[in-house]
């Protein structure tokens, strides 16, 4: 792991901060740097540091979170299939247009996972080949895992149009 961090520090000085908790090492890229540098960091980790496996893409909404500077975060969980090391790259984004570069050119597995983050948080992934909603219906307008979306919804469920057999 020190080798990986040295490579990243040499290539992207000042672009990220490092955090660690238990055995999780995190590379955190603030919202002003993330659109420019996230893809290059992921590419460097994949091509030069051996993190060839994208484990997960997780979206987080930090609205009213203690000491949070930016609102949205997308965590790319990476793993090295040879050494079983793990690394987490966390990129932040902010309203009104949360946008990050897509990792699909690096990992095909990012396709659906990024679609889910878009569906749930409204973070747009630039360069994604097919960015549509995946779990929610296409006509849904909110982003349900955002913290300002209430647990019981905004009434969408009760306002579904009913289709009769004749109309279908």
């Amino acid at each position: 792991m020190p080798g990986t961090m040295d490579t990243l520090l040499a290539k992207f000085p000042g672009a990220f901060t490092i955090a660690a908790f238990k055995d999780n090492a995190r590379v955190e890229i603030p919202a002003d740097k993330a659109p420019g540098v996230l893809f290059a960091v992921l590419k460097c980790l994949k091509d030069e540091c051996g993190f060839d496996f994208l484990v997960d893409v997780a979206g987080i909404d930090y609205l009213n979170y203690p000491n949070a500077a930016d609102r949205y975060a997308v965590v790319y969980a990476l793993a090295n299939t040879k050494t079983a090391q793990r690394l987490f790259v966390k990129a932040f984004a902010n309203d009104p247009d949360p946008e990050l570069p897509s990792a699909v050119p690096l990992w095909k597995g990012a396709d659906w996972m990024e679609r889910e983050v878009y569906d749930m948080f409204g973070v747009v992934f630039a360069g994604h080949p097919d960015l549509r909603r995946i779990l929610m219906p296409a006509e849904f307008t909110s982003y349900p895992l955002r913290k300002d979306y209430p647990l019981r919804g905004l009434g969408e469920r009760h306002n579904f149009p009913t289709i009769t057999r004749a109309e279908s």
Partner: protein
Amino acid sequence: MPVESLPIADEAGADQEFLYTLNFGPQHPATHTTLRLILTLDGETIVKAVPDIGFLHSGFEKLGEDLDFNQYVTIVDRMNYISPFANEVSWHHTVEKLLGIEVTPRCKYLRVILAELARISDHLLCVGAAALDLGALTAFLYAFNEREKIYNVFEAASGQRFHPGFSRVGGLMNDITDDVVGLIRHFVNTFPKAHADVVRLLNRNRIFVDRTKGIGVLSKDEAINTSCSGPVARASGVVRDLRKDEPYLAYPDLQSAFKVVCATGGDCYARYLVRMEEIVESVNIIRAAVENIPAGPVNVALNDKVTIPDKTATYRSIEGLIQHFELFMWNRQWTPPVNEVYAATETANGELGYYVVSDGGPRAWRARTRPPSFIHFAVFPQLMEGHQISDVPAVLGSLNIIAAELDR
């Protein structure tokens, strides 16, 4: 979702009028659960497959932000409902990592044994249902006969057959009795015969082999590139098993009891073989573990103030009563660090991980699931292209898509 809004119309242009579109699901016997495929067909050959999912989306991850660490176990049970206990282990493994709890040796062993039983149950359903879809009803019945015994074990241990809800932060709901150990021993002794029956029915069954060999081939590079894990990746030659790579719970003690099963074919038959062999390894793990369950308490000590005290302590001692109160009042409960953690376990379907963000309160700020079914189903369109429509059940069955986990 209307067909017009899906990215299929442009593929079959006006010059390809011989292509036609077939709607497969959401309710179809071969999907087993609720998922929908829109297949563009040339005769019986699939030109393009577009999955449309989300029919079972019930906001599990949103509920994870509203329920506390113990309550949410009932929800993770219902994600991969074929092997629910493995999900519980994974969830509480992550929560305990966040809270910094080291569970007792007895709890580690019990969780491992029950999670391996859940893995056997999951693999049996996957193999049995895959064979059923290809016309082999007998193997399905043999497999379900054995699953019944596993349900009996869970019923004896927790009182619930399908969704045990047995795991708790820092331990288990209750300790198991000797009856449960007897049931597990009986299962381990009688199961190899049933396993051999299924193997004899399917491994060299010409219809089964013809319909699975060379179907839905996933290469090793593709498996890594598309984030596949578990039996799907191992059938493609990716040697990655979290039980060996980052041993958790009691697996450090059980390393000599099992091997990582891999194949190189990457097709449906290889995935079937890997699952069948993994069942054997799981039986070996259970056999080694069940004779070595350490004595002692199943929950961490009451003084650590993280586990629900047993009822005797609650009703007969002031400390137990206070502790019970502390853990059930919604504004008391646990005080995790303001941080975030990812932990994963190897479940039957692959790497099941949780990314838990905590704001210091007893509920997760964010409880992200890494759902193996979701990630494996993303590979489905590329596995299907160029195959026949009758291969759809074979590939779906071999990927073991559980729609509740797919949509959450």
